[in-house]
């Protein structure tokens, strides 16, 4: 926890405009020169229920939501189901205030809409006493009244931003610019009036006794604020993808939406179809015909894709799928993150699996690895899956604009042209040996596309001969099966030799205690390790993205270099820890797990505590909702 950062939480009812307000405020902070990380918490409902967005802003890189927060703007819930009664559910209007207090740091600021939340209700939750205990600074403001006076009630979030800016001593310039970009006419005018009025009123009405101010920073290069879903969609665009088929499901819908909105202007095609079986089957069909295609879903929908995924493996049809995990099993908690689909994504579909799976941990990795997924899928004719989660999907961070300034890669990999087909092997009847014996060392047999002259063959989900006919001969079976499976070895080799590592290393290189994580938990773990290092603990960390083919060499080196390691992941069974042991066949005695599956991502402090409990004070139970699984034999 550092003092030079702002963690601003805006809380209200679903429908109170929390998303758009926070998006603009985050951009304003970014434009002022700060680094940003946002975290979104929302219920699986259309209206009603409480939602909040946190914006963490600092003059240094921020990689997680941080611990707790220090500024609450509570709008109250204007869509509360039972505003006037506090019967069974209690009064809902105040919940965006009352339910957010536990995580507010000492010395923090509270602004709430006294136009919506009544004095009585505030008294009932003992806000004054709690504020005194925690040294909170409380600013009741009539945001609703301000909004009504100069515009409409829905603009009370603008009033809240004005109050925030006043209390944090922020310049209004960036906020005004962003408003002007987003709206015009009377609406813009009203909003600007409300913003200024709120700003001035706050300064006039209150003497500021709080210390918190907006941090000051500068960026040397231009920044863009992006979510993981943006990054995956942009990686696909730059990887040459121009076909997507899907069916809506939270949280994967974001990627589907972004590409559906962009593809028409890029000559691409998006199809919303009857179910996820069809979605993945369409991607297979489009890819078979020669287009770089993708599909995706979240857990439940991905379950329906098992069959077409297996078909793509057997027919060696290039394909990219994305799987946005959420808390399971079954419908689980649709809007809450979890990392519990790893084993499912690695192995679903009948038979031995041959697929590539990447789990990006940051916005940049999400872009990089999606691009790479298209390269690998089309070069090696293998399904490649990006596994991520609700956390990475929705969090926004700032990225150097220049990071994206690179050439697209639309090539079709190991696909032949008609010219090349003339030289390729054919059987006596002129059928192209698509799955041929003229093997090269990478185990890839080049493909043709329907409509090409001289490329005729059969693709089939049955075991097949070189021209694609159904064939159960044992020699052919062993040849084809081995070739398909060994493509993964070729891919591992290429990843090790020709690409910078997809794994992220951090902490004290000489340490003999390791922290291991994967996917979207990376940021919180990186921060935790850095705090442990600052506190004098010798710890290092690795965040893994290559789930399959497994980075055997890198993991072995890491684990050999430490005496003990703690695997941090958001699930209840330690799936990645299990994968390490399965792939490496040892190290069971070195590995403990820190698991969390309460619907919220790890905060750095929880990882720090996990380390302390594991290493320093073995008898203590963690205070957070996490679980420690000891090493084998312990």
């Amino acid at each position, binding site marked *: 926890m550092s003092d030079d950062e702002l963690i601003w939480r805006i809380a209200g009812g679903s429908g109170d405009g929390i998303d758009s307000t926070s998006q603009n405020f985050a*951009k304003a902070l970014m*434009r002022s020169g700060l680094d940003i990380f946002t975290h979104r918490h929302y219920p699986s409902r259309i209206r009603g229920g409480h939602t909040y967005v946190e914006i963490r802003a600092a003059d240094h890189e921020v990689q997680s939501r941080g611990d707790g927060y220090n500024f609450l703007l509570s709008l109250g819930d204007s869509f509360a189901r039972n505003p006037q009664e506090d019967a069974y559910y209690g009064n809902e209007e105040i919940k965006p205030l009352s339910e957010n207090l536990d995580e507010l740091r000492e010395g923090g600021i509270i602004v709430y809409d006294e136009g919506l939340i009544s004095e009585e209700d505030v008294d009932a939750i003992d806000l004054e006493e709690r504020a005194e205990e925690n040294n909170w600074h409380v600013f009741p403001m009539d945001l609703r009244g301000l909004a009504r006076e100069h515009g409409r009630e829905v603009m009370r979030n603008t009033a809240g931003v004005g109050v925030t800016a006043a209390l944090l001593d922020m310049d209004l310039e960036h906020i005004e610019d962003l408003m002007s970009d987003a709206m015009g006419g009377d609406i813009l005018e009203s909003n600007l009036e409300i913003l200024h009025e709120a700003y001035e009123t706050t300064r006039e009405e209150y003497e500021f006794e709080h210390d918190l101010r907006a941090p000051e920073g500068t960026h040397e290069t231009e*920044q863009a*604020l*992006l979510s993981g879903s943006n990054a995956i969609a942009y990686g696909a*665009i*730059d990887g*040459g993808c121009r*076909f997507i*088929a899907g069916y809506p499901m939270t949280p994967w819908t974001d990627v589907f939406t972004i590409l559906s909105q*962009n593809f*028409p*202007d*890029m*000559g*691409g*095609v998006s*199809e919303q*179809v*009857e179910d996820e*079986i*069809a*979605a993945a*089957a*369409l991607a297979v*069909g489009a890819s*078979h*015909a*020669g*287009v770089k*295609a993708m599909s995706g879903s979240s857990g439940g929908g991905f379950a329906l894709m098992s*069959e*077409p995924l*297996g*078909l793509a493996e057997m*027919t060696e049809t290039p394909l990219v799928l994305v799987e946005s995990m959420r808390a399971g099993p079954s419908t689980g908690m649709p809007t809450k993150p979890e990392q519990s689909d790893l084993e499912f994504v690695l192995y679903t579909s009948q038979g031995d699996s041959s697929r590539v799976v990447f789990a990006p941990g940051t916005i940049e990795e999400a872009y990089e690895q999606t691009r790479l997924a298209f390269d690998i899928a089309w070069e090696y004719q293998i399904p490649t899956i990006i596994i991520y989660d609700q956390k990475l999907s929705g969090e926004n961070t700032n990225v150097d604009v220049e990071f*994206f300034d690179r050439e*697209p890669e*639309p090539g*079709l990999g190991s696909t032949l*042209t*008609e010219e090349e087909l003339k030289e390729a092997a054919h*059987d*006596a*009847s*002129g*059928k192209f040996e698509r799955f041929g014996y003229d093997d090269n060392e990478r185990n890839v047999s080049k493909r043709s*596309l*329907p*409509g*090409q002259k*001289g*490329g*005729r063959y*059969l*693709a*089939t*989900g049955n075991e097949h001969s070189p021209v694609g*006919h*159904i064939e159960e001969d044992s020699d052919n079976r062993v040849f084809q099966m081995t070739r398909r499976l060994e493509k993964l070895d070729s891919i591992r080799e290429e990843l090790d030799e020709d690409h910078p590592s997809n794994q992220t290393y951090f902490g004290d290189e000489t340490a003999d205690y390791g922290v291991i994580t994967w996917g979207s938990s990376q940021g919180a773990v990186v921060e935790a390790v850095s705090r442990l290092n600052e506190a004098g603990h010798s710890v290092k960390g690795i965040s893994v993205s290559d789930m399959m083919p497994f980075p055997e060499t890198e993991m072995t080196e890491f684990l050999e270099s430490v005496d003990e390691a703690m695997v941090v992941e958001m699930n209840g069974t330690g799936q990645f820890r299990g994968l390490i042991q399965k792939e490496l066949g040892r190290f069971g005695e070195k590995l403990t797990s820190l698991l969390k599956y309460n619907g919220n991502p790890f905060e750095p402090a929880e990882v720090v505590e996990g380390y302390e409990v594991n290493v320093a004070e073995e008898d203590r139970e963690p205070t957070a909702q996490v679980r420690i699984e000891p090493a084998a034999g312990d």
Partner: protein
Amino acid sequence: MSAFNAIGEEREIDRDEFTPGVEPQPTWCPGCGDFGVLKSLKQALPEVGKTPEEVLTVTGIGCSGKLSSYLDTYGFHTIHGRSLPVARAAKLANPELEVIAAGGDGDGYGIGGNHWIHTARENHDMTYIVFNNEIFGLTKGQTSPTSPKGHKSKTQPSGSAKTPLRPLSMSLNAGASYVARTAAVNPNQAKEIIKEAIEHDGFAHVDFLTQCPTWNKDARQYVPYIDVQESDDYDFDITDRREAAEMMHETEDVLNEGTVLTGRYYVDEDRPSYQEEKSAVGELPDEPLVERYFDDDAEWERSYDLLDRHK
């Protein structure tokens, strides 16, 4: 210049080109109606000017699924019930391809029913042939969605309590713009119907009665058949949805009583295909999408140019 020169090639086409030169020989049982589908396709394709390499035959699983093995075109033998989503995406990716999807009654009307309804609804420009033998053949004779009520099999030992599905009526309701029924025992009509279906711009559904001499011995061999266009007993307008619906209903009813009615049931030449509809709203490129990947001069948009909205 196209990267797909098999498409639109003008030349004499021999029906033997559609027979695999080396292997495989069909493994269908002697007397199987599936031979009738294969034969009618081999006759129809050259007559409508299609070469083997501009046709993509996409099949499901079952005896019918083997069609793509025995018809020597580009082929994709997919998984049970999923031929249609694979086929329609291939058509969207390359609208110049002649796409023919095929499967059995279990494949199309049972496990793949959802895809059938939606492909018809969207009116994708393709031909869909359903080998309807009113039974599961490859798994050895279980009751299928089109088996008559009371049909006894190993899995329905007391006789099926279910009324058979109405393939023609359902296709019409779902939105198919060409619906016909033919039978393997009527090769001339079959060939003509297949030709019409291929040439139709939209979703053309052919319910093809294919007798199963092995597992459905008790059933009729679909003889004698009656062509509803040729018989004087039937008079209806195939462009009139209501009249077509009535005729379909009757056809489905009498099949189980032993009267085999076949012919064209509904043709709507005015309904735009899905490809046309999607182009009209600006969501399908004018040039086949796949050609772009072979065009060295193509300009590829990049995400860098989308970043303004994030700044």
